[in-house]
């Protein structure tokens, strides 16, 4: 055979394998508003950067006449490429081939590209669109999932792992995304659940749609399983590209430094955004935008547990992770969900050398039987654990209220913040003036002729004495009380001076965070 014929043979083989499930199946995929697996990869990666591997892998099913079937690429596309010049390993399940079902060879392709990602220290992006395990392959399909989960865990904290849910992801399959760092969902397309509507119908006789059970909105708002929510696949890919610009390739690198840009101070003025009365609400994201580069803030978990805000921004060109209480929602209290949300983000930043800036304005923890019985103690402890354990530069800014356990939890000096600053409006106290006065002066108030007047007087007295940053500053728990207008300069200085920070934990196999 001449080279020309060999080449045309290669072309023919490539074409057949790359066609996926064929016209009919592709039509079906498009009809529900979904791109094909190949289109997705090509849209996400830089033009001409995608290089595919294992195109000619064939499935391993022997039973139930599976050996007579040809499944192109065994329903998954794997390869390497770049996103804005960043190298990435990527795989995309192809729903048009046997419903993207996971068989032994399919899993083998995924685990192979995962091994490459780990060996080469580059991020891994997985696009999930699969009906689940290929039942005909029995335990081999289960083995495949297990191998993927194991590698997700190995890679955790070494390379960033991103899961994109662009179709069904049901049953055991959901645990791969759950083990990764960021999960992206798209409205009406993503569906995630352990047991689907059919099982629920059989067991309970209850009718619930896939969308209401495990649609994109549910995971973005209620469960917190998804970190980013988009209206369309295109928007989703733009979000991924944006996220990739903020994070480093692996845990030995820092994120790429950008040119420094001033915030849009005409649009975001601290003086206008910030109310000084402790009970008045405001949007803390506007404070972040008032101090960060270009006022650009990429919020993570925007709709889930909105009483705490987390996300990435740049200060003087360098990526920073922001954690801020949100007085706009539930007065900015810490509760089960917000603790989970913050703790995981803190650990991500610590794993990938991203400094943390914490903005504090919280009245404390959310009271309630549901919270206590839901385990707010062990969930709340995660925040303390994550902050204490984090060895990246940690800068804390107390804006207004920092009461009680919340003050300690929000990266106080006691949890080894490198710098703690406070605005003059800060109130650092064991609890709010109203509550404190009621307890300390309980008898005086009770025995007074005019209890209400005495209560008011005592609250005022307590406020004047303790509702300020100077008591804490006198003990050195606050490093500096600063003019809000100097915030950006102070933060940038603190970050640049702690850029080479080295801190370690005692030698151990691993700690025991309150999972």
């Amino acid at each position: 055979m001449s080279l020309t014929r060999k080449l045309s043979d290669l072309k023919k083989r490539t074409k057949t394998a790359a066609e996926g499930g064929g016209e009919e199946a592709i039509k079906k995929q498009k009809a529900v508003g979904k791109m094909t697996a190949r289109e997705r990869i090509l849209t996400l990666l830089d033009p001409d950067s995608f290089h595919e591997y294992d195109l000619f892998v064939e499935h391993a099913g022997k039973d139930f006449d599976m050996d007579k079937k040809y499944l192109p690429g065994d329903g998954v596309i794997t390869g390497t490429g770049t996103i804005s010049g960043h190298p990435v390993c990527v795989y995309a399940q192809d729903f048009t081939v046997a419903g993207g079902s996971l068989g032994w060879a399919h899993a083998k392709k995924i685990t192979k590209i995962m091994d490459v990602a780990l060996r080469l220290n580059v991020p891994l992006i997985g696009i999930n669109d699969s009906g689940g395990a290929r039942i005909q392959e029995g335990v081999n399909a289960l083995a495949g999932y297990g191998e993927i989960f194991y590698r997700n865990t190995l890679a955790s904290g070494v390379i960033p792992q991103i899961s994109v849910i662009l179709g069904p992801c049901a049953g055991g399959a959901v645990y791969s995304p759950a083990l990764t760092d960021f999960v992206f969902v798209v409205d009406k397309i993503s569906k995630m659940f352990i047991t689907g509507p059919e099982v629920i119908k059989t067991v309970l006789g209850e009718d619930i749609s896939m969308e209401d059970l495990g649609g994109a909105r549910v995971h973005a708002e209620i469960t917190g399983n998804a970190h980013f929510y988009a209206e369309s696949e295109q928007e989703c890919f733009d979000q991924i590209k944006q996220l990739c610009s903020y994070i480093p390739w692996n845990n030995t690198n820092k994120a790429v430094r950008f040119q420094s840009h001033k915030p849009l101070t005409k649009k975001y003025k601290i003086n206008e955004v910030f109310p000084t009365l402790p009970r008045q609400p405001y949007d803390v994201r506007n404070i972040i935008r008032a101090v960060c580069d270009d006022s650009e803030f990429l919020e993570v978990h925007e709709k889930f547990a909105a009483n705490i805000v987390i996300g990435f921004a740049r200060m003087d060109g360098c990526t920073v992770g922001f954690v801020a209480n949100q007085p706009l929602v539930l007065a900015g209290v810490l509760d089960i969900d917000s603790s989970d949300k913050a703790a995981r983000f803190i650990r991500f930043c610590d794993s990938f050398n991203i400094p943390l800036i914490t903005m504090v304005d919280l009245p404390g923890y959310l009271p309630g039987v549901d919270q206590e019985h839901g385990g707010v103690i062990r969930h709340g402890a995660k925040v303390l654990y994550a902050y204490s354990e984090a060895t990246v530069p940690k800068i804390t800014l107390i804006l207004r209220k920092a009461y009680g356990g919340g003050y300690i939890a929000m990266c106080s000096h006691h949890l080894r913040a490198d710098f703690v600053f406070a605005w003059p409006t800060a109130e650092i106290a064991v609890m709010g003036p109203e509550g404190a006065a009621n307890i300390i002066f309980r008898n005086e108030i009770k025995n007074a002729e005019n209890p209400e007047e005495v209560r008011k007087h005592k609250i005022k007295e307590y406020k004047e004495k303790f509702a300020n940053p100077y008591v804490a500053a006198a003990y050195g728990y606050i490093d500096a009380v600063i003019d809000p207008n100097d915030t950006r300069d102070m933060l940038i200085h603190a970050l640049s001076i702690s850029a080479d920070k080295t801190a370690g934990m005692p030698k151990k196999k691993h700690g025991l965070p309150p999972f």
Partner: protein
Amino acid sequence: MKTDSKKTEKKNNVKSGDVEKTKRKHSKKTISSLPGFGTLPLEGLSYQTVLTTKFVNREKYKPKSNNEVYSLIPGTIKKILISPDDVVKKGDVLCILNAMKMDNSICAATDGIIKSINVKIGETINKNTLLINMESLTEDGNKSHDHDEEEQLDLETNVIF
């Protein structure tokens, strides 16, 4: 559930629009017009803030008594081993609930008399369904979950966060 999520959807659509407005004006008035805006009382102070749907819909606590037998898992009633007015002992099997491919024995939590049986054989039931009402013959049936006599925290000596 369906109506709930629709509500949420509507709420959020309006909310994001309003947040945009807030960004522009930063006035207190716009913030207080956000859907779900209300007050949250904490330690003697009422905070003005947005109350999330999850918070508003949180399950209110209901104390449970040993006289009421609830299902802890969804399933199908396979057998009922008692009838009204039967006297049972603590630990006696009252009925068999087939759930998760297992026959689960539902036992009496206290000695007592069966008052009513609220399910039939073959019935599919959800979690937390009231299966059987009993009348306890011992103190613990009525008292074990009684909150009236619970010790009050002495706030003078116990300073809490």
